[in-house]
């Protein structure tokens, strides 16, 4: 390690202001801080600092996503071999999925980070770590059959127009990962909807055995073929077609445990999204006008990307509401809208994505009213004093 440090110290002047490669300062900085936590010491304000930083925070979220990623890989293999009717085992499934999913992960990171590095360089900023999580989220909400060039184009679109135009990490209004998916959803709908994209090879018309449809539970629900929806336990385990990382609720809950134990993610939002979802489903249950409306709250929450969105998307600290009270309102509305869109608008099988994007737009407004309430309390207090005196 000392040799590496020495090497970095030797080449550092070249990348500093006035050095030969000073235009690559941010890039150098990003790699240097990746390897070594800097030696910077405090000079004003508090003399000591919490050991946590953005890199640590983001890496914890990435770690929390790993169970979903690994299960997703296994499931890709499992669905593929089931569709062609071949016998298989865990390792074979995993290896097949690894070969199919890793390219998407790599394309997502490479295209997104390239944009991030270029913008950091132009702005002469340090490279922010926000994309570490976004780059992992994108593959997890893709169908396995997605063409890689679409992943690249939509990631670049989302990072530039969803994040950089607003000023970069911390300033964006919409969750960049969801924006990527929304972009594909509207620009290349054939590649992200229907029954064939969720299982590898199906969209190319590969041979499938009889009885394998490749339809997701949400598609079944939307076509009122409720009996084809797997039972709750299967929905929980995740052995059915869907986006790569969303199917296994067990894997997602493992991630939730990591996030809650470390205290990184916001339980207020997670809890209220689920409450909102349950609430809306119960309202639909009361009407019960069609088979979709009669689906139980538990099944609704276990289907599709509801839980994945609640845990990893809605809780994005930048695009969510920032006040504690605001977060409850924000979460409940996300949950309610997600189910509402699902059930009443069959054109959008997964309401979660649109619901979160919609509430991202309203989060600042919700915060505004919470802040107003705080201000009003303060003014009231002052008024009380004036009356007394």
């Amino acid at each position, binding site marked *: 390690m000392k040799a590496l440090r020495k090497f970095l110290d030797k080449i550092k002047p070249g990348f500093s202001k006035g050095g030969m490669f000073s235009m690559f300062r941010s890039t150098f900085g990003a790699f240097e801080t990746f390897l070594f936590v*800097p030696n910077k*010491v*405090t000079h*004003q304000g*508090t003399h000591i600092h*919490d050991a*946590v930083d*953005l890199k640590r925070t983001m890496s914890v979220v990435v770690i929390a996503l790993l169970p979903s990623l690994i299960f997703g890989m296994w499931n890709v293999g499992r669905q593929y071999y089931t569709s062609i009717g071949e016998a298989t085992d865990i390792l074979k499934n995993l290896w097949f999925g690894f070969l199919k999913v890793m390219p998407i992960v790599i394309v997502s990171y490479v295209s997104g980070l390239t944009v991030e590095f270029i913008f950091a360089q132009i702005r002469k900023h340090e490279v922010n770590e926000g994309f570490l999580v976004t780059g992992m989220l994108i593959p997890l909400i893709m169908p396995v059959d997605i063409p890689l060039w679409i992943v690249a184009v939509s990631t670049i679109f989302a990072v530039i127009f969803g994040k950089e135009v607003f000023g970069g990490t911390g300033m964006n209004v919409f969750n960049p990962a969801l924006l990527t998916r929304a972009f594909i959803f509207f620009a290349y709908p054939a590649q992200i909807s229907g029954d064939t994209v969720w299982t590898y090879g199906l969209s190319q018309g590969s041979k499938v055995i009889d009885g394998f449809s490749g339809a997701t539970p949400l598609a079944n629900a939307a076509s009122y073929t409720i009996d084809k929806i797997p039972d709750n336990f299967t929905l929980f385990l995740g052995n059915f077609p869907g986006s790569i990382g969303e199917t296994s609720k067990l894997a997602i809950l493992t991630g939730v445990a990591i996030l809650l134990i470390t205290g*990184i993610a916001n339980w207020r939002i997670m809890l209220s999204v689920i409450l909102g979802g349950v609430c809306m489903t119960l309202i639909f249950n009361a009407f019960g006008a069609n088979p979709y409306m009669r689906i139980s709250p538990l099944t609704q929450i276990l289907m599709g990307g509801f839980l994945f969105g609640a845990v990893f998307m809605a809780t994005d600290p930048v695009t969510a509401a920032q006040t504690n009270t605001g977060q409850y309102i924000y979460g409940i509305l996300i949950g309610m809208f997600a189910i509402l869109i699902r059930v009443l608008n069959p054109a959008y099988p997964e309401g979660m994505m649109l619901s979160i994007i919609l509430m991202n737009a309203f989060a600042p407004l919700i915060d505004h009213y919470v802040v107003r309430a705080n*201000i009003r309390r303060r003014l009231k207090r002052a008024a009380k004093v004036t009356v007394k005196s």
Partner: protein
Amino acid sequence: MPHHIKLIKGLNIRIKGKVKNIFLPCVKSQWVALKPDDFKGVIPKLLLKPGDLVKAGTPVFCDKLNPEVKFASPVSGKVFAVNRGERRKILEIVIETDGKQEYIQHKISEIETLSRQNVIDEMLDNGLWAYIIQRPFGIIANHNAPPKAIFISGFDTAPLAPDIDFILKGQEENLQAGINILQKLTNGKIYVGINGKSVNPSIFEKIKGIEITRFSGPHPAGNVGIQIHHISPVNKGEIVWVIAPADVVIIGKYFSKGIYDVSRIIALTGSEVINTGYVKTVAGTQISFIGKNNLSKIEKRFISGNVLTGTTIPENGYLGFYHNMITVIPEGNYYEFLGWIMPGFKKFSSTRTFASWLTPKKEYTLDTNYHGAERAFVMTGKYEKVVPMDILPQHLIKAALIEDIELMENLGIYEVVEEDLALCEFVCTSKIEVQAILRKALDFVKKEMS
């Protein structure tokens, strides 16, 4: 039974180097200094020049903007040097002690016979006014604007802070005299916040003329700003005064004995001090009295005050005017290979992202490393967890950054000073310098208002 306010929000930083309840032998330092930077917003105007003889209590400089506010020498001796920095700004006025500690003897009058104006004039002339701080802004009080109340925090919850009751032991009479003087300064009450968790009765429970409120909870429960917020918050246009308990004693001594005696008991703390303990000394003393033998051999930082709000001083620097502790911690100027992903058994964090959360009682050696670099503001909700007030710290800081005075007022800028939001800076994932932002905003608001 006094009112008991239980606070939940906050954070006790588990840092090594707590002070032991013993007195350390003290070697008197030859040098003492007054540092004008200790007094926020004061532009010093020298009243003496190097070579002039002083006694304890001789005014050394005054505030250029309010010349009636004078600052006095803590010791007898002679003005040795005036150290200046950039643009000839006065950094230190160094006084060489003569070892005799002669006081200027003032006339003693019965406290009951003094009028409010008498008290104010005496305090202004003799360097005592500097102890009275006003909120909003945390500056030396404006003596022309009477406060609605005076607040004293009877305990300190800051990391490694001294035990106020230990410091004040045996000072009941002077404390009572000081309180009697403070009563002349306000038509309102004198509120004292004491530790609701303490087993031993606080010294303040024997004092008359005050209203006691008990507070319990993690730091910053002992900050007077937090206590004001819960007892009688500062609204726009209102002024309150605050003063530290040890400084009440100094005022009490002046009016009962007629001398400016600023001897203080300070705590010597921090992980790099081998024998921690209390030291009897005077404000502004050179800290070389600690002695090399009582310090570890690694590179250290000397802090006058606590690790959250104190000022860095050199090894031969001087104790700050208001400070009652010296903290010595290691410097953190090292690189750490892949430190952001290592388990981190030896790192303290308010989150549970490091393995150290498995040992919730352990104390840690904390150094001055940033543990990261400044980043965009991403993580939210962390500030709120360490500010036990009905204030939205994150929104307040954002308002401060855009210099929106009306918004800052609405969000409660008048209720806070740096120390109240210091923990926000400690926990900040993006390493944002909250205290510096807040001070800049306070100065800005003050300037625009006057």
